[in-house]
């Protein structure tokens, strides 16, 4: 069976407010990936454009982007699964290549969140939940994840201090990432200082420091069939495993509140497809839109047993030198979370790690990496396993 590779990766800087239009923002990630892969637009057989469209005035961005990137007359696809859109885009690209329909596919994720105010943004994000039966109560993403945090604390004795350690780790690496939106240090003491912004309440039990930053950004992943990858690329990174799952949008339809069922299911599928186990993962990117989300990811992916995720961060096992480095690029918490661009950015980090090109955040000699990318509050889950 022919394999499928990633032969180019790119992303824009993640910034608070991008001084340009969405097509120009998307071009930044695309350009870096094309230069990385040393391709011309003639080499790209199709594009997959990924975002959550409610932030944009532009209807159907895929066609607009295809023209701006120089990808006419090749076909283009539009993929949306909220915050996991670009991981889902890579899943689509894999199947397009595997089927033989296209040889080289560019997956471009983007989001320009700054087009609307922060509270408007919260309202739109809240509408990623059940707008008929939940949103009329005034829901927003931090509050949903806070409900999971509360359940995790009740069942396993997890504390706010455990969660703060995850934010401190993210900031440790965000400072080293010149593409990150939040490059300042965060110390443990900030969370116990009522004067400090980090300790401010958002949705109990989560505080400001537990939440990721909105950002504008783009990412691009170039996916190719084996023969093309070997001909075009010195260090192809292979897609070994893919998992994807969905769950009830309304929390009333869920059974688990101390983890995300979609992550557990997608993880299991990806491990089985790749023929590896959690202990084989050398470096991982997980969807830490909130600190609790990273804690649950440790457990949902099998890096720790249920309820024991806190020991990983306390023991620094998820730091760069630890046994399972997680989010050593700053994660969503410090790097920022431009919805449609996030999955591609996570995949880019793991590809650079597996190529030994991650610079200051390079983990020692990783062979296998994992990306965990969630849409909504566990509405969509994607897990991707990559190997050098």
């Amino acid at each position, binding site marked *: 069976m022919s394999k499928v590779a990633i032969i180019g990766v790119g992303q824009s800087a993640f910034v608070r407010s991008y001084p340009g239009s969405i097509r120009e923002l998307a071009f930044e990630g695309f350009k870096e990936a094309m230069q990385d892969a040393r391709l011309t637009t003639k080499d790209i057989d199709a594009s997959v454009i990924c975002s959550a469209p409610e932030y944009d005035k532009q209807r159907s961005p895929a066609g607009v982007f295809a023209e701006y990137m120089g990808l006419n007359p090749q076909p283009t696809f539009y993929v949306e699964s909220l915050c996991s859109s670009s991981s889902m885009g890579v899943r689509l690209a894999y199947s397009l290549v595997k089927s033989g329909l296209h040889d080289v596919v560019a997956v471009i994720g983007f989001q320009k969140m700054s087009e609307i105010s922060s*509270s*408007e943004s*919260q*309202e739109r994000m*809240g*509408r990623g939940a*059940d*707008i*008929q*039966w*939940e*949103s*009329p*109560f*005034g*829901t*927003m993403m*931090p*509050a*949903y994840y*806070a*409900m*999971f945090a*509360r*359940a995790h604390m*009740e069942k396993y004795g997890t504390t706010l201090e455990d969660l703060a350690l995850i934010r401190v780790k993210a900031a440790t690496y965000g400072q080293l990432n010149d593409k990150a939106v939040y490059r300042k240090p965060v110390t443990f003491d900030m969370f116990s200082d009522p004067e400090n912004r980090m300790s401010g*309440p*958002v*949705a*109990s*039990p*989560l505080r400001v420091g537990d939440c990721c930053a909105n950002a504008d950004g783009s990412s691009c992943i170039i996916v190719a069939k084996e023969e093309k990858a070997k001909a075009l690329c010195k260090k192809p990174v292979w897609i070994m495993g893919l998992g994807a799952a969905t769950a009830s949008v*309304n*929390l*009333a*339809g*869920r059974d688990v*509140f101390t983890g995300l069922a979609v992550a557990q299911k997608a993880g299991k599928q990806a491990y089985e497809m790749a023929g590896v186990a959690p202990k084989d993962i050398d470096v991982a990117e997980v969807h830490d839109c909130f600190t609790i989300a990273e804690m649950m990811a440790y457990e949902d992916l099998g890096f720790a047993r249920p309820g024991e995720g806190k020991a990983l961060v306390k023991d620094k096992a998820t730091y760069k030198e630890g046994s399972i480095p997680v989010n050593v690029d700053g994660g969503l918490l410090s790097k920022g979370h431009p919805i449609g661009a996030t999955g591609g950015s996570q995949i880019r980090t793991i590809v650079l790690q597996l190529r030994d090109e991650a610079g200051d955040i390079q983990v020692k000699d990783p062979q296998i990496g994992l990306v965990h990318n969630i849409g909504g509050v566990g509405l969509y889950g994607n897990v991707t396993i990559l190997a050098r």
Partner: protein
Amino acid sequence: MSSVKEVDDRFKKFGTVSFTSITKTNDFIDYLEKGKVMGTRCKGCGLIFFPPRADCHQCLAGNMEWSEITGTGKLVTYSKLEFAPIGFQEDVPYCIALLDYGDYKVFGRIADDLSEQDIEVGMQMKTAVNTLPNGQLNYVFQKS
């Protein structure tokens, strides 16, 4: 004679801000007005749905009957919001929560008169109709 067709948009009364006005479950609002919180039950296979729905994915029948949410449920989890999305700022602070009734769960708000010290995960609560200051209707969880 007016040629304008009457639109059944009763659902716009649900919650502080409703994002849906037309649904086949519009009768939910009439029941709220009568003080009842209702789910639906499939007459074909007996499956109970909350939130209520018009279609059964198990037997594909569209033959539902209304069924009242009665008794108490266990508080699974909650969060107190200190910030709110647009349209909800005047409600802050408020708690969103989930109750487990066994056969189904109910997502909603905790009653405003309950302070956070009195809220405990695992406690038994009941679901009751509530009229909001802006005249809209929702339901809240009260101490049982």
